[in-house]
């Protein structure tokens, strides 16, 4: 005869039972078993039947019963996570979608402003404000303002590019340089996005260089699908010395560029248009025309004899560095033999100009034509 008083698998509540065929059967065995089963629950290690969801009382499963790191996104209902469920200061840049509006670090990222003219610009040249075209080797590039094939804007840039032996080193780029807007970007990660359109595959791709084009980090090529595509590149700048961003041209193609965006962080951002006033203000830090409108600038006075100097002073938007000052055009001159000259070296915020009288009487110099102007150019 053999019996056990406590079942090894079900010890709470348990039941006694016989363990051999010859064992005496007692009715208390059935009673104890019935009592145990009436209160038996799944023991968590595979004993008993699986519990259907309907068998779990509502509100009975707590966080402690769910293994850490096991809830998949598919288990969450759409729109179920609210701000209150996200810890303050915990959403990192890497979690941002490209449509999260952010500050653009570029000047004239939208290619909207072309103070130097609408082109075509060939050779190594400044094109749209703050952007440069630099063909390599025997490559050629002709760059113009593009008013039609734009990406939701007033203007883009169109580049008619012919590949020679440049081997992918011809570029359209904008610089962020020491002494101007580089220092605060050092040791940061930046991401570039730029809208590009072409019908030629593998002809254009975005890049970021931290050291004046010694090393470049590229994004993927445009597919050549003929539509505007967003090309991107991301780089941890480290101790950058001369940051340049833009696109590199690797095959003969007509390429349209629009709406470039450079942001802090590892996630590129969609272009955020600036208010025109702000867009222009950034450009004026580097290039400005005084007297763009005829008869808007005049230096005049009265001389008792000739030659006597008549002075005029002008202020302009503060420049990144001391500008080159060009006095262009012929001007309309009264009682003077030459158009205004700069006195000494004009500064970052203004300068003094003069005309010399030929004889006694009224002396004047007017910017009577559209080509009569004072041009300030500051390229850090």
């Amino acid at each position: 005869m053999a019996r056990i008083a406590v079942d090894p698998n079900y010890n709470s509540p348990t039941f006694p039972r016989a363990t051999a065929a010859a064992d005496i059967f007692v009715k208390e065995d059935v009673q104890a078993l019935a009592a145990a089963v009436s209160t038996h629950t799944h023991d968590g290690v595979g004993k008993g039947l699986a519990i259907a969801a309907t068998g779990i009382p509502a509100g009975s499963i707590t966080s402690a019963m769910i293994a850490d790191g096991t809830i998949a996104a598919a288990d969450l209902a759409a729109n179920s996570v609210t701000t209150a469920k996200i810890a303050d200061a915990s959403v990192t840049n890497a979690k941002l979608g490209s449509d999260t509006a952010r500050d653009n670090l570029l000047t004239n990222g939208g290619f909207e402003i072309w103070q130097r003219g609408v082109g075509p610009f060939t050779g190594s040249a400044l094109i749209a404000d703050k952007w440069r075209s630099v063909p390599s080797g025997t490559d050629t590039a002709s760059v113009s303002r593009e008013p039609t094939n734009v990406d939701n804007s007033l203007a883009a840039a169109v580049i008619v590019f012919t590949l020679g032996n440049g081997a992918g080193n011809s570029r359209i780029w904008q610089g962020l340089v020491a002494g101007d807007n580089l220092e605060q970007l050092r040791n940061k990660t930046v991401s570039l996005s730029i809208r590009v359109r072409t019908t030629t595959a593998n002809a254009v791709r975005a890049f970021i260089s931290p050291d004046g084009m010694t090393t470049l980090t590229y994004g993927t090529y445009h597919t050549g699908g003929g539509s505007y595509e967003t090309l991107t590149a991301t780089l941890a700048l480290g101790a950058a010395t001369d940051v340049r961003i833009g696109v590199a041209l690797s095959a003969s193609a007509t390429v349209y560029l629009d709406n470039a965006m450079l942001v802090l962080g590892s996630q590129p951002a969609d272009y955020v248009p600036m208010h025109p006033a702000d867009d222009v203000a950034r450009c004026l830090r580097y290039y400005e025309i005084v007297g763009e409108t005829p008869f808007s600038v005049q230096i005049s006075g009265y001389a008792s004899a000739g030659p006597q100097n008549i002075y005029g002073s002008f202020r302009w938007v503060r420049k990144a560095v001391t500008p080159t000052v060009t006095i262009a055009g012929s001007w309309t001159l009264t009682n003077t033999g030459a158009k205004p000259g700069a006195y000494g070296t004009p500064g970052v915020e203004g300068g003094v100009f003069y005309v010399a009288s030929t004889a006694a009487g009224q002396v004047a110099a007017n910017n009577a034509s559209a080509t009569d102007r004072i041009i300030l150019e500051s390229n850090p």
Partner: protein
Amino acid sequence: MSVRPVLLNADGSVDVVFDEGGHSGTIPVAEVEWATNPDGSGNHFGIVLVCPDGCGATSTHPVGGGAAPAEVQQMFVNKTERNGCACGAIDPGDSTAAPESHVRLNVNRQDGIGRWQLG
């Protein structure tokens, strides 16, 4: 745009382009002049280039470089070596490192340390 140097020739003349007018040409060494102070003396912070095309466009380039820093700074060094400095600190024909040091000093004074673009 400016009447900007694109090539500095061995004889001191300067090849320039004036993009806005589509002009280009060579300015003789004798016409690469210092900017002038109100008293008529030369100013070592500026060099004046007149478009050789005859359009009359005149660019005053600052020693810091303005529109074309590397080319302009080198133009200042070349002129200072050849003609001496307008301030009198450097004598004409000085082939030592003094002309470049003097120009670099003026670049730093005008636009700050870090603007120097020559090696």
